């Protein structure tokens, strides 16, 4: 399916072939030593952020500017006419008059899909409530594929461990959906009550993915090529004492990684709070900042593809 003019709303909308197209485009952009400022010259991207998310907005803005495009935007809902009661659909109908592509972040689940039904220019979902954040998933996949090219050719199955809040963490849900297109073994480790929801386990089972649960973080570390950490949120725990206890058992330290495979890499969508100790940063395993950096070529790729300047 051609990308030109396409909306980027949910990772579930993308086939394996689509995902490979994005990864290959990101790789090609990253391998260019000179900035490709001619690519989208004259095109305008609107960032429509109804809730603050500095890193996602900056990453999209940096990506667009590196492609030679220009950026206009709203960084919070307080400055938009939704405060005056304007509907989301009308806001989109107005912004599409100005821009060639719109990146939207919105606190309501499904807002980006609604926007895509209204807009004639491509909508890129920069996060809709607790639902989807597809550019994060593409950059996660790109990061894993850069570390382990075997992900794409399937020559050797990778073992990927997800740890932390697997129930509410949208990044691990979307990543699981995307990984269903590839040959991986999944290891899950989560506090009781925050396990991966059944519908995602069914998705994995439907494609024959090998999914197992690890009893603790240390056990997951021993098996994994990739350890994908997520944040534990205090509001998910009714009992603050329980949160303190769980928080301690879902924190990795440099010491815990001493027996890990040398090739193990730790990923995290960031920001981290307590779940990765600072001393992990100095180990060969820390890869979360490089992962965030991959957001630029991946978002350049997405923008270039939907604007029709990359094929």
């Amino acid at each position, binding site marked *: 399916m051609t990308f030109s003019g396409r909306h980027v709303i*949910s990772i*579930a909308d993308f086939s394996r072939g689509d995902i490979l197209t994005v990864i290959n485009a990101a790789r090609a952009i990253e391998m260019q030593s000179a900035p490709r400022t001619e690519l989208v010259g004259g095109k305008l991207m609107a960032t429509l952020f109804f809730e603050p998310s500095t890193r996602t907005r900056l990453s999209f803005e940096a990506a667009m500017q590196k492609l030679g495009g220009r950026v206009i935007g709203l960084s919070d809902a307080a400055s938009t006419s939704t405060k005056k009661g304007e*509907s*989301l*659909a009308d806001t989109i109908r107005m912004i599409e008059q100005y821009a060639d592509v719109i990146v939207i972040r*919105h*606190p*309501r*689940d*499904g*807002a980006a*899909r*609604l926007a895509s039904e209204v807009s004639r220019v491509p909508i890129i979902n920069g996060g*809709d*409530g*607790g*639902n*989807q954040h597809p550019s994060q998933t593409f950059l996660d996949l790109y990061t894993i594929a850069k570390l382990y090219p075997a992900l794409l050719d399937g020559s050797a199955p990778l073992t990927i461990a997800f740890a932390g809040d697997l129930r509410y963490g949208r990044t691990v849900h979307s990543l699981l959906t995307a990984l269903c297109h590839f040959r991986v073994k999944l290891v899950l480790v989560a506090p009781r009550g925050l396990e991966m929801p059944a*519908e995602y386990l069914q998705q994995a089972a439907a494609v024959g993915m090998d999914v197992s649960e690890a009893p603790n973080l240390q056990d997951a570390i021993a098996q994994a090529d990739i350890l994908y950490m997520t944040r534990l949120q205090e509001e998910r725990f009714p009992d603050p004492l329980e949160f303190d206890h769980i928080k301690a058992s879902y924190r990795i330290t440099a010491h815990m990684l001493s027996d890990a495979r040398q090739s193990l890499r730790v990923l995290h969508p960031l920001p981290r709070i307590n779940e990765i100790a600072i001393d992990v940063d100095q180990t060969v395993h820390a890869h979360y900042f490089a992962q965030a950096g991959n957001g630029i070529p991946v978002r350049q790729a997405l923008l270039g593809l939907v604007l029709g300047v990359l094929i």
Partner: protein
Amino acid sequence: MTTDPPTATNTKVRQVEAIVHGTVIDHIPGHMTLKVANLLARENDQVSIGMNLRSARMGRKGLVKISGRELDERTLSRLALIAPGATVSIIRDYQVIHKSTVPMPKTFEDIARCANPNCVTNHEKWSSRLDVIGHEPLHVRCFYCERSFAASELTLV
């Protein structure tokens, strides 16, 4: 010419009185019978309700008869959501002229609210869209927020 009303001698004994013209909704899961009657009946409709009737297929079932009216497509969609598997018979002049299981749409558009309180369709003036992803029991997924629900969790619009 009007056909004579059915009697015990010209038909099997009915558990709920026959109607001349209208719609009979049969094989309603017992606990949904009053809900179906409330959903379908308009203010001046003449409605007969049978509850806990004997059924070879279901053990016990509910039945609702509405005199003088046939159901439109939207009403049938609402019925499909709350009583999938029910049968709908169109009665004209005491005769069943059409009988079928309530048609199950692939998508319910603006029939029920998404059960996710944070779904954008519960905050904007925008129609809900719930795609059927499973039967027995009926499950749907919101096209917008991508959450899945059992039909029993939904509230009709």
